[in-house]
């Protein structure tokens, strides 16, 4: 029997560190001996940059624009440690339908059975965060990814985007779509940030997979066009990513999340807003946050 390829989709609000996190997970899994493909599903097409020395690669849709049929091999490029890098790409900003572009790119790969041919262990989709239309939900529909992880900071807008994603997962969960593995809490430095994320996952019936602190090592690595795993393999931050990758590797059971209704989410945020104000004015101390 052919081995089961683990397909994972990683979502998160734009600019939250989704591609950075995804690339480091890919790199860590690859270093651990797995065969990995990273599939960027964002019209900006910069998901795999740090796996390829900062270089952009021709995208599936750019290649399709040039000619009618594309062989998957023509748009797969090897990156750090033999990781297969693919960028779906998209139309020029302001025209066409990027969502349909993602569908086209993902289906092109599915039809050509390329994952089996390459004998992959992991395919990781790095997807634009707000599930704005059906196209961006393709990786979580039936038969593509099984597990979804969402990258979120403790900022309200990031949490809002994560909650929207949960709604998407909830919708597709009845028809064999992907389920939620958990939240990757990013840029968690202030103590209250951890509390906010912990409270959010509790409210929405999920879990935090890893807390990733903001670190200058990441910035330094990215400026060299590399992942932290490649540029600073022994750093403390690299250990965090390795730990995260290891948890994802053993992760088996994903769940249906319980997204909050918009009004509930606002009420929840307002509660934290009041608390943070009280914290600033010294009315409460950090340790008390757990009781909130």
């Amino acid at each position, binding site marked *: 029997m052919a081995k089961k390829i683990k397909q994972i989709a990683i979502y998160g609000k734009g600019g939250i560190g989704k591609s950075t996190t995804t690339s480091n997970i890919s790199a860590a899994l690859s270093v651990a001996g797995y065969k990995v493909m990273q599939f960027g599903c964002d019209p900006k097409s910069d998901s795999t940059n740090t796996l390829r020395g900062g270089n952009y690669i021709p995208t599936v849709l750019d290649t399709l624009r040039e000619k009618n049929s594309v062989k998957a091999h023509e748009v797969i490029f090897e990156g750090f440690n033999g990781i297969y890098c693919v960028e779906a790409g998209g139309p020029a900003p302001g*025209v*066409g*339908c990027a969502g*349909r572009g993602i569908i*086209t790119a993902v289906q092109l790969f599915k039809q050509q059975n390329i994952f089996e041919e390459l004998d992959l262990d992991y395919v990781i989709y790095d997807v634009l965060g707000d599930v704005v239309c059906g196209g961006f939900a393709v990786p979580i529909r039936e038969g593509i990814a099984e597990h979804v992880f969402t990258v979120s900071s403790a900022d309200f807008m990031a949490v809002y985007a994560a909650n929207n994603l949960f709604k998407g997962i909830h919708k597709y969960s009845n028809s064999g779509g992907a389920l939620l593995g958990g939240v990757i809490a990013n840029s968690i430095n202030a103590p209250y940030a951890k509390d906010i994320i912990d409270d959010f996952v509790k409210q929405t019936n999920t879990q935090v997979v890893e807390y990733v602190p903001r670190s200058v090592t990441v910035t330094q690595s990215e400026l060299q066009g590399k992942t932290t795993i490649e540029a600073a393999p022994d750093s403390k931050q690299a250990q965090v990513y390795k730990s995260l990758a290891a948890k994802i590797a053993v992760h088996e059971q994903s769940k249906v999340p319980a997204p909050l209704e918009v009004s509930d989410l606002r009420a929840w945020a307002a509660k934290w807003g009041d608390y943070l104000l009280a914290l600033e004015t010294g009315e409460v101390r950090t340790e008390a946050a757990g009781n909130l």
Partner: protein
Amino acid sequence: MLKFIEQPRYSCAIGAQQTVVAIKRGVPILHAGPGCSSKVSSLIGQGEGYAGGNTIPCTNAGEAEVVYGGEGRLRNVVDGAFKVIDADLYVILTGCTSDIVGDDVGRVTGEYQAQGRPIVYAETGGFKSNNYVSHEAVVNAIIDQYVDVHNKGGNIQKGLVNVFATVPYQDPYWNGNLEEIKRILEGIGLKVNILFGNGSGGVEEWKTIPDAEFNILINTWTGLGIVKHLQEKYRTPYVHFPYLPIGGIETTRFLKQVAGFGKLDSKKVEAFIQKEEEKYYSFIERTADFMLEFRYGIPRRFYTILDAAYSIGFSKFLLNELGIIPAKQYVIDDTPEEFREEIKKLFAGISDLRSAEVAFSIDGGVIQQEIREEPQKNRAIILGSGWERDLASDIKADLLIISAPVTYRLVLNCGYAGYNGGLRTIEDIYDRVLNTYR
């Protein structure tokens, strides 16, 4: 709940391609998926005309146009159309795909307009409306983007009128109807912009739309959006006759209403009406003996399965001039809610003594089922579409095909409007009846 609509008699918004085909030397350019245009042609487009049917340039938009946007492809097709089709007016019409993706067709059209090309565009994505409504959108687009560029108005010509009547091709007899309407309006002293078909002066005539003294709308609700737009834009008043005038009584009523509105020379109007009525009734007089003896041979009841303008027009004629009694009348043009009360009132007062029951339905299957279930105690005639052929044969009714799809008739200059249209109706009904004689 899922609802299937069987045999609708109109098309989606892109059906307005036929509005353009009906303009002399007008060409529609479709920015739509493959198949949209030919489906419309096969439903309502008997004959290709100048550049209709298979001649219509189309982007055949597919997945590539969805993903990357279809503006480049559209430019390509427009450039090609300019090269190979010699026309006076080009009208870009968008289909669902382009409207959903959001191609900026206005900008693309604007580039050609800036070069002085006679080209306009209208968004006719199928999800937006049916072709009764998009007909208005296309006519208004031509007025705003083409006519207005050449004529800003303010130069009213006494006695000049624009006529908006049934929707070309959606009404299979549009050209014959328009010719008769133009003839009778000229007869009472008006100069007529008929705008579509053989009797029209093409785009040069369209350019004089703002110069009209008033507009005439001969339709129940379709076209109100045009005459109201013209009233707003050029302050042109309009007179509204809410159904197709068929036969002596209604045509005279129509002419008198127009003459009253336009304060025309009543002597001239009366003289024309008298001459026309004499001619009209002379034919009936000549065959009066035959008609009288034959009075039990013609159908006793009639059903109409037509759009509102035709349904009311025929009902009045059949009842008041031929003495056939109305059964239930079906209005199939997806009449907007706000016009339905008025239509019910018109049917309620179909004559001084009679009223007719009216139903609004777009589902041919439901309508036919209802008629099948009614007791057919005496001979009926159905005025419907080619799709009523089996029904008519099953219930042993006569059928006069008036509505699209006509399928079993070839239409050249036949029309049912006016004095001549009334005579034509009598001929056609008796023709069907006599044909069943052994």
